[in-house]
């Protein structure tokens, strides 16, 4: 094992007027630390395409994860998929990216646009081997991973974007590469890179996509630890223990909560300076030497949870937290973009002032916030450890 990790994110837009997407992305993690990602594009659009692509990606990811060969997967799909009554074929194209112990990527591609690989921010035409399985022409590649490698898998809805509207022949591969090269090393997450690509497609389609368009991005990066302190300990005497454990950890340190940051300030013997810069409706942040970010507690974290839930779903609000200067945006950038391993130090003290029924904050809400946040971060592929005090 090395200290690399893969950040995986994807987004789809649907054919105009369709409620279901005919593309499907499936990510399965294996026990040995390998990951199988399948992007399948079903024939046509709507329900039928959705069924075809879901079946294809589920079958392939499950079979590969169980150690079966790609030949068996393809045969199974050919024998299992329902045959389209209009066209007389069972058909779904697919791209497989298999990440083996964060060291090697195996690409298996069937009829989707060729996966783009950006190495050090530039397009790299990697070697491919052609094989024929069950009459299907399949390209395979083995790539040794390097830090900052970016893999971009797409359904054909992406290069077809803008046909007859913005462009005569759609959004050409070279142009997609140029578009992505410019952004690949700016620190955008895989999810945001895929969102930027698909949103651009949507623009080229004039907001009315003529096909389902999906992109799935894998970004190879180094592990980055981060620590977040939230709430004072339930037993006052545990303060010192909590602080020494928290500050002993490698990586950046975030502290949320007024009382909590006062305890930290006392422990560090440094002054806590609160700013009065109100940006948006989130309380201002504060400054404390030795701590990377100090914010207010419940209101700020509540907003972070909202951003996190949106991020793993439709990702509509990334522009808010990507550039915002308020506490919630700052925490979101640190946790979603920068961190890969997050340690939460959660104090279970009950603030008597918060138990007022007129206030929308109380102890249960606080504990729920931690739960929801760590769930969402896990879905982003991060390793989470929560310790209660």
């Amino acid at each position, binding site marked *: 094992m090395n200290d690399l990790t893969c950040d995986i994110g994807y987004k789809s837009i649907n054919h105009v007027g369709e409620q279901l997407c005919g593309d499907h992305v499936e990510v399965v993690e294996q026990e040995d630390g390998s990951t199988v990602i399948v992007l399948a594009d079903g024939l046509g659009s709507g329900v039928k395409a959705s069924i075809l692509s879901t079946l294809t990606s589920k079958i392939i990811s499950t079979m590969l994860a169980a150690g079966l060969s790609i030949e068996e997967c393809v045969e199974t799909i050919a024998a299992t998929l329902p045959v389209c009554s209009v066209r007389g074929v069972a058909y779904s194209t697919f791209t497989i990216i298999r990440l083996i112990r964060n060291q090697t990527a195996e690409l298996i591609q069937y009829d989707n646009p060729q996966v783009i690989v950006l190495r050090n921010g530039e397009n790299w035409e990697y070697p491919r081997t052609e094989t024929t399985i069950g009459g299907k022409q399949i390209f395979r590649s083995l790539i040794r991973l390097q830090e900052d490698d970016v893999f971009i898998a797409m359904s054909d809805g992406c290069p077809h974007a803008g046909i007859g509207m913005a462009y005569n022949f759609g959004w050409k591969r070279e142009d997609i590469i140029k578009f992505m090269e410019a952004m690949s090393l700016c620190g955008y997450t895989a999810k945001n890179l895929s969102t930027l690509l698909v949103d651009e497609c949507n623009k080229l389609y004039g907001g009315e996509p003529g096909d389902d368009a999906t992109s799935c991005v894998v970004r190879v990066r180094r592990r980055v630890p981060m620590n977040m302190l939230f709430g004072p300990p339930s037993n006052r005497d545990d303060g010192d223990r909590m602080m020494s454990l928290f500050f002993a950890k490698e990586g950046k340190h975030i502290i949320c909560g*007024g009382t909590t940051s006062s305890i930290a300030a006392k422990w560090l013997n440094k002054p806590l300076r609160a700013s*009065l810069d109100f940006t948006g*409706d989130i309380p201002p942040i*504060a400054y404390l030497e030795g701590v990377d970010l100090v914010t207010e507690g419940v*209101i700020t974290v509540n907003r972070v949870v909202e951003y996190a839930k949106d991020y793993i779903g439709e990702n509509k609000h990334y522009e808010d937290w990507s550039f915002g200067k308020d506490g919630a945006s700052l925490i979101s950038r640190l946790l979603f973009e920068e961190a890969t391993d997050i340690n939460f130090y959660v104090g279970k003290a009950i603030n008597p002032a*918060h138990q*007022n029924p007129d206030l929308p904050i109380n102890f249960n809400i606080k504990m729920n916030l931690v739960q929801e946040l760590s769930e969402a971060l896990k879905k982003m592929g991060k390793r989470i450890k929560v310790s209660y005090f």
Partner: protein
Amino acid sequence: MKVTVCIGSSCHIKGSRAVVEQLQDLIAKENLNDKIELGGTFCMGKCQQGVCVTVDGEFHSVSPETVSSFFEKEIKEKV
């Protein structure tokens, strides 16, 4: 003179932002910028009486509605 406003969770919900902004306005209007240092702090431990404001260490309970009278009585007269 040092005026400190709590910007913790409770006081935030009770309107500390409005209090800070009104105080900033009033101080600017009275040209007291060089005499008054307006600052923020996290929880003062008296959330029930928020919005918590201290003037040279002396505690006051203020709300967005009472800012101007508080300013006249506790800040303008004493500065």
